[in-house]
């Protein structure tokens, strides 16, 4: 699985105006006084729960969601909204561990059979009870080669989804698949009402249609272009939330969003990359900025192994020449952590010691001498062309850092600016990747298992463009291994190959930047906000 997350929509919106150029210009002088020191030690997963009821909370999304149907919820704005509306079979806790959700119990009689016991007494917003039919429908619609679900690759090994009892659903797999079982704690495992989804067809989850789920908030209204209004669900099985109303605005322009947060017109927002003008928020008396544990990382992907980046030694040299410490300071205003591997410590949901030991074997420290040595060994190198997304400060500044690193060790690195509206084609269209050796992207795995990240290096994965296949055995073995200790060995094996040969260069781990007005508190601070009801604990501060 792969997670491309410089969102097309958000980026397109931003690029729609020159305004972005206006805001990025500010960021340079703010870097100077950015004294942020974000580290794994000071990342949090929760904020103090709200204690008082509050009438209305306004939350900003970086762009208007395309759909609220959870099967199309695979991006920041969509998931931020749906996490409070539609619940999954399992619930991802803020620390990324998993607890029962709509399934009160899960058993695996054997490696290819998963049995979910559906929770009693759960009702949809309209009062009808949750049934096994709804669960079967919600999963089954994502199975199959032509399923349009954004999560269909998690369902690739699903053979059948059937109701096997009045409150029991059994999923049969064609082969053991740890990604499927864990994905049930993400939007892939979210349950919608069968009757509503079938009645509304394509309109389900859009402003034209509606939504019918079981979450702590219900969908009141979606005013296309303006706002999405949620109301507290008084009958919520896990206790009604403190906020009676939660409304989402869609401010795409970062400086406008920052201003709206500073004036209190908007009560909060999750940023997946720190916004330009971060210091205006950290310095503000009105809001509190929290950096949360996250699964997002910033990386440089190699798309062409026949060009300048084709030789392993060149990628290794480039990696050694990059000053990641400076990169996180300059590009991410201090709100980033130098990355040594792709799946960082936040992914260690099991066998932590094993992963930590393997992780300690890698370093993010630059070593120019060794890098020069590697370049000398590699001989003549063709110029390296990196695609840079237009109107994106993060892209351009990262490209500058990489170019400087290349120059220091004698590599000719050129950049090719691609307009944001065409940048998305790089992911789909081999013709668009013609003449390009690599590009930058944010990615994330959906849950705390490095298997999900390294899965994208499987030669069969739709995002392994160059057909790099040096870790296939370990990757496939890990996905099919239900024993955690054994799986960790496979993943560490794959990680070793991937981090040695560097088909992708790890650059930075990106924490969640959560901004909350001081009148409220309680939003989940970690990346789990994408998949679990983060606003259920949100309330007023007395």
């Amino acid at each position: 699985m792969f997670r491309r997350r410089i969102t097309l929509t958000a980026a397109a919106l931003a690029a729609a105006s020159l305004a972005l150029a206006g805001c990025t210009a500010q960021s340079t002088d703010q870097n100077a006084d950015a004294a942020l020191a974000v580290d794994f030690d000071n990342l949090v997963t929760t904020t103090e729960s709200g204690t008082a009821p509050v009438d209305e909370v306004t939350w900003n999304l970086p762009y208007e969601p395309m759909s609220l149907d959870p099967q199309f919820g695979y991006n920041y704005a969509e998931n931020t909204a749906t996490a409070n509306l539609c619940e999954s079979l399992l619930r991802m806790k803020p620390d990324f561990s998993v607890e029962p959700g709509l399934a009160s119990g899960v058993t695996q009689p054997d490696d290819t059979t998963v049995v979910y016991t559906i929770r009693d007494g759960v009702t949809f917003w309209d009062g009808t009870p949750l049934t096994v039919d709804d669960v079967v429908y919600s999963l089954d619609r994502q199975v199959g080669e032509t399923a349009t679900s954004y999560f269909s690759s998690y369902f690739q090994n699903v053979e059948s989804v059937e109701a096997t009892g009045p409150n029991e659903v059994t999923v049969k797999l064609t082969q053991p698949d740890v990604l499927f079982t864990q994905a049930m704690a993400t939007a892939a495992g979210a349950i919608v009402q069968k009757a509503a989804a079938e009645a509304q067809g394509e309109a389900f989850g859009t402003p034209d249609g509606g939504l019918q789920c079981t979450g702590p908030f219900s969908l009141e209204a979606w005013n296309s272009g303006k706002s999405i209004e949620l109301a507290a669900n008084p009958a919520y099985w896990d206790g009604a939330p403190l906020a009676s109303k939660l409304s989402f605005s869609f401010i795409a322009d970062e400086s406008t969003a920052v201003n709206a947060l500073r004036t209190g017109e908007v009560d909060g927002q999750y940023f997946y990359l720190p916004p330009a003008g971060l210091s205006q928020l950290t310095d503000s008396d009105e809001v509190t900025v929290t950096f949360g544990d996250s699964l997002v990382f910033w990386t440089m992907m190699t798309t062409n192994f026949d060009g300048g980046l084709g030789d392993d030694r060149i990628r290794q040299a480039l990696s050694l020449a990059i000053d990641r410490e400076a990169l996180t300071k300059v590009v991410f205003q201090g709100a980033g952590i130098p990355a040594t591997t792709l799946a960082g410590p936040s992914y260690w949901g099991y066998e932590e010691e094993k992963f930590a030991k393997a992780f300690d074997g890698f370093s993010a420290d630059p070593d120019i001498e060794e890098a020069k040595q590697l370049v000398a060994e590699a001989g003549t190198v063709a110029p390296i062309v990196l695609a840079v997304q237009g109107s994106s400060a993060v892209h351009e500044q990262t490209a500058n850092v990489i170019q400087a690193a290349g120059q220091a060790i004698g590599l000719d690195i050129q950049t090719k600016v691609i307009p944001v509206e065409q940048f998305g084609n790089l992911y789909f269209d081999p013709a668009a990747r013609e003449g390009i050796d690599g590009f930058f992207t944010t990615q994330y795995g959906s849950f705390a298992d490095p298997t999900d990240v390294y899965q994208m290096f499987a030669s069969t994965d739709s995002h392994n463009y160059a057909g790099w296949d040096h870790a296939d055995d370990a990757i496939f073995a890990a996905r099919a291994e239900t024993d955690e200790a054994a799986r960790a060995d496979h993943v560490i094996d794959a990680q070793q190959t991937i981090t040695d040969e560097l088909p992708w260069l790890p650059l930075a781990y990106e924490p969640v930047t959560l901004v909350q007005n001081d009148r409220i508190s309680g939003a989940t601070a970690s990346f789990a906000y994408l998949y679990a009801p983060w606003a259920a604990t949100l309330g007023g501060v007395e």
Partner: protein
Amino acid sequence: MSAGSYLLRRVGGLLLVLLVTSFLVFGLLYLAPGSPLAFILGPRGGTPEQIAAVTEQYHLDDPFLVRYVAWLGDILHGDLGYSIVYRQDVSTLISGRVPTTLVLVSMAAVIIAVVGILAGTYAALRRGWSDQLTSTLAAVGLSTPSFVVGVALISIFAVTLGWFPTFGSGTGGIDTLHHLTLPAIALSVASAAYLARITRAAVLEESGREHVQTATVRGLAPRYIVRHHVLRNSLVPIVTVLGLTIATLIAGAVVVENVFALDGLGSLLVRAILQRDFAVVQAVILVLVVAFVVVNAVVDFLYTFIDPRIALGSRQ
């Protein structure tokens, strides 16, 4: 020409323009690289089977003319089409955004007209340092991009003083006017400056005309001369420029809409173009063309009031 036949000719012209622009826009979108696939399949991308299924479902591989004719047929049945990116009817998408754009552009038009004409006339009549000052301000206004004005307005009047909201289009009525004040000012600065310069030039020219000199020599009150002889005669170029400016504001508002997070037609259009959402692009373009033609028709009508010698629809 009578008002009836004038209207008939205008409507005929409008239909022709609509047909030609829709064909051109459709063709250009078709030729430009990119596809809505990225937005339909989602960030995950898709397997070849999924890509084939979606392409088939939305006829993305059909030849250009087939798609265009299908779209044209729907339009003739009053169906604006379906946004494949947003999975909703284009008519809903558009109707939600028209009011915001309408109010924003109307407010900006009023500001442009009042400020532009007053400042231009003042500069032309007073001359001297006040003319210098107005011209300098106009030059600054013309050369300042609207997003800079917008960001400055937000930081002064919304963040520091707290008089206006920072974003959004409000909940209707007075609230909407309150929300759209800063955006309307940001949108109108450059155009008002432009109109001020046009007005100044027109008033100066008229002031030097013989009939004005005659009136002055005959001892008519300066106020009367300005109102009845100078301004009235300068109004033709002023109204022409004003009409054209307003028509371009509708799509030109996109930058301001983005800065103030407004749900206008401009941002919908730009986003739809980026996403290759053909039906939405076409529908917004249709609205723009209609607005353009209507504004120009209104300007034509105004001409006949300003100068009775001009006949409706004449080529003068």
